[in-house]
């Protein structure tokens, strides 16, 4: 299982949607899964996903592989405010390279 923390309008995919608390979804992980694959299976529209995606506290590209026990956090496109040039992105994603 992977633990997914959702923020902003993406909280709607979690049971607890209180914006002053945490909205968490636990999802199964399949062999070879990327962050994108897990989110797509959850039904999250990818156009709503911003560049602020963190896998195990690391600023990450959507192509990054996930594994059992990982912690993922996803912010929507209207919530991105990271000073990204200070954050080396782990993994490369051509489509997503500039966030």
């Amino acid at each position, binding site marked *: 299982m992977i633990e997914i*923390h959702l*923020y*902003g309008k993406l909280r709607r995919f979690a049971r607890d949607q209180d*914006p*002053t*608390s*945490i909205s968490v979804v636990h999802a199964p992980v399949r062999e070879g899964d990327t962050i994108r694959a897990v989110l797509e299976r959850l039904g999250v529209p990818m156009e709503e996903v*911003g560049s*602020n995606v*963190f896998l195990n*506290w*690391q*600023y990450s590209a959507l192509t990054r592989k996930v594994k059992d026990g990982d912690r993922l*956090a996803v*912010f929507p*496109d*209207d*919530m*991105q*405010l*990271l*000073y990204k*040039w*200070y*954050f*080396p992105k782990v993994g490369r994603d051509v489509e997503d390279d*500039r966030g």
Partner: protein
Amino acid sequence: MSKILRVNMTDLKATYEDVPEKYKPMGGRWLTSAITCDEVPPTCHPLGPNNKVVFAPGIVTGTAAPTSSRVSVGGKSPLTGTIKETNAGTGWSQSVARLGIKAIVVEGQPKEKGKFWLLHITKDGARFIPADEYVGKGLYEVYPKLFDRFGKKADIMGIGVAGEYQMAMAGVCFNDHEGKRPSRYAGRGGIGAVLGSKGLKFIVVDSTGLPAAIPIADEALFDQGRKKLTEALRTHAVTKPQGALNTYGTAVLINIMNEAGGLPTRNFSSGTFEGAAKIAGEAIFEGNKQRLGKELYNHACSPGCIIQCSNTWYKPDGSEHVSCQEYESVWAFGANCGIDSLDVTGELIRLCNDYGLDTIEAGGTIAVAMEAGLARFGDGQKAIELMHEIGKGTPLGRILGNGAAVTGKVFGVVRVPGVKGQNMPAYEPRAVKGIGVTYATTTMGADHTAGYTIAPEILSVGGKLDALAVEGKAKVSRDLQAATAFVDSTGHCLFIAFAILDIAEGFEGMVEECNGVLGTNWSGEDVNKIGLDILRMERKFNEAAGFTKVHDRVPEFMKYEPLPPHNTVYDVPDEVLDSVWEF
């Protein structure tokens, strides 16, 4: 013709002088740093007669350029002992520009100790008025009285009791646009104390009767630039109406930095805070919605801002509590003090506005005081009591009011997260190593705004940098510091960086605006060159003041205390830090 207004506090004279040729293209930080370097002896005591305070609107301030009402305030800092530039967004800056004033230079010291003055500047000139009746009072009480006296079209610069006490965390307070509140601070570095040492309590400006815009050399070019930048700001997800900044404010970063493991918590002992969601931008938006019964979007801190990221926090009964709960302030009193209540952070921010304090240094100091055992982490009530000690100027308050480094020294705390005596803002260097390079090497002491702006690949001809390489960080930091120095000279808010980073036309627009106003012919490369010139000049001042590369270091504890959740130490080699200045 614009002028420099020289304000001599020794003999209470205000004199208009011609602008020397070399200052003519300058504005904002470029000008405050140039005048400080030319006129202030680097070894002077910051609170003595030889220090000066310089105010300068930006190059395009006082035009229709979007989000361009910043004013830079410079001099030698009593907090760091370095040169200082600190800036704020306020209509005060536009009024000064419209009054044809390129810079205000405050110098000298009154013969009579404890006497305070107000300088009133209108189209008819500048005059001194005794300000004793406003001394010792909170700014929330005083600003409305000043607006009653000088009219609603006036704008105010002032210092609070912290400045009167000459505390090293005293900020320079400007009124905001919407509510004329004492809430927009050029906070960092204790310049409020320097004004206190000069007996200058307020500068009230009113540009009534003057043209709405400053002279522009090439109207067509300026307009072209203004439109490009406006378009970029209106379309970018971060800066557009109801975008991240307008909806959630800068505090949207609380949750983001928490998920990055870089939200400094309990005096920089962890990178995540379990109460983050309760004090984040979403919680502010939701809290106001519940208390007001409607959605509230943010407002402009200053006239002409189209990003509009400034918020107001409301009490449970729907009455106003404070403006504004922005990222750095909420973090400083929230995560950094282990406090997870927006009502408590709101009250602590309100006290900073009232007493005239920099929220970042104040929050950092309360956190160090908690580390020292003066209060438990998370004890909001005790934090409020400690802030009142500062406001009253008690012996304990005087210690706290001089910042985190002094407080740490007095109480024997080793974990003091500062550089050159200035407490770090809300990004943990052990998690975000590049920003640690900027904290360590900037001319200003630990300062996030010293280096977060335009992407190096836009500015440099050398192509993309690999941000993963440790060696690359020095160049990233240097280029960001140079670009920031330029943006801080234009009068634009640094938040335009989000849009001009991603949208090339926006960057071009900013340069064309400057060329339009000044009649210059700067290119993108010139922007980098000017930025580096500003840094060199500031660095020279600091060297003459006794600073060496040994001062360009993060505090030692960060090198041996691993920070959860990444469990990393600060391991950027000293040689990399030193190479920032090899250009």
